[in-house]
């Protein structure tokens, strides 16, 4: 899958906006992404390892709820992570 990150997350991905990540599901892709980029982990995931509610996740532009992260994805699928709002 190709994971695309929102602009305020780029500081934690070494300013990579699009990242190819192998994995059979969205959840697995997020785990691998955070493994490859450990700075992203506390930003994307809470202490229990769940995606923080402040982020919205889309697969091929369809929004995915937090209980749908087990959805299978292929290498051509685009997973987009957007931050809803930031308190800057």
């Amino acid at each position, binding site marked *: 899958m190709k994971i695309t990150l929102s602009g*305020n997350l780029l500081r934690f991905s070494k300013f990579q906006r699009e990242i190819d990540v192998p994995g059979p599901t969205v959840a697995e892709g997020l785990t691998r992404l955070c493994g490859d980029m450990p700075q992203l982990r506390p930003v994307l995931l809470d202490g229990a390892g769940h995606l923080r509610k*402040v982020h919205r996740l889309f697969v091929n532009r369809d929004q995915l709820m937090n209980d749908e992260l087990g959805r299978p994805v292929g290498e051509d699928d685009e997973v987009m992570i957007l931050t809803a709002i930031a308190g800057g």
Partner: protein
Amino acid sequence: MPRIISVEVVSDTGHFTPLQLQPRAVLSLAFNGLAHWLREHLVSFPRLIAEQRTSVVILAAGITYEAPCRFFDGDGFSVRASLQARRQASRAELDVEIHGPQGRAATARILLCPVRIEDPVSLAASPAPFPAPVLARFRPDEVDPTSPARPLVALQEEVARHGELLATARRPFTLHRHLCEVADQWAFFEVPGFIGASREALALARGGDVPLLRQAFGEPLRRLEIELSRPYFWLEDGLVETSAYRLNDRLAMIHRLSSNLPGGDQHGIAVEIF
């Protein structure tokens, strides 16, 4: 009476167009007035975020220009700001007056939504009323349970219903970092720049056959109302769709801010009256 802070600003050329205070400058100075008010009466903006894990995002902003205030009119002007918590502290309203040598030059109103900082590193946040320790620092007359007004709705309806549509335009933009605030999210006071660029491009392209459009170059802005529904973040692409109207022989503009991002494409609406 709500507490007011007053800040004296020494004029520099960047605050002004040849005609008036720049709308961007008015909104930026108004927001800085908020920072002054917070530091004096609540807690400084950095400490509000870092220690109280509380911040604000902007839902709406408006400017009404009054007395003339041009660069050569004087050496400076004052910014007076007051803040009220509204609607069970789930909103806050910043009222700002700018006073120049000829009296009150502009009023600005900024509607804020308090947010709880969920992640102190990225500053990702979610809407939440002011926490009790913060709310306790407002005086009773600075807490109003009612919902704030939405003046843009009526103004947009008036322009769309009674105005004569003259021309339309679309102008893309990219949110580069100089247009962002500390969280790499757009700074709301850049909205006048985005819509102004679209308005001027339209006037350049169509001002020959629609002369009223050139009023956008030579007449001061009288009123601006903005409502924001979704932020842009750094490096995201946006679009301004501008519709120009004749309203009582004046020029009026409705600008729609959108993007191609998933999850809803509307980011905001702005109305300008010249």
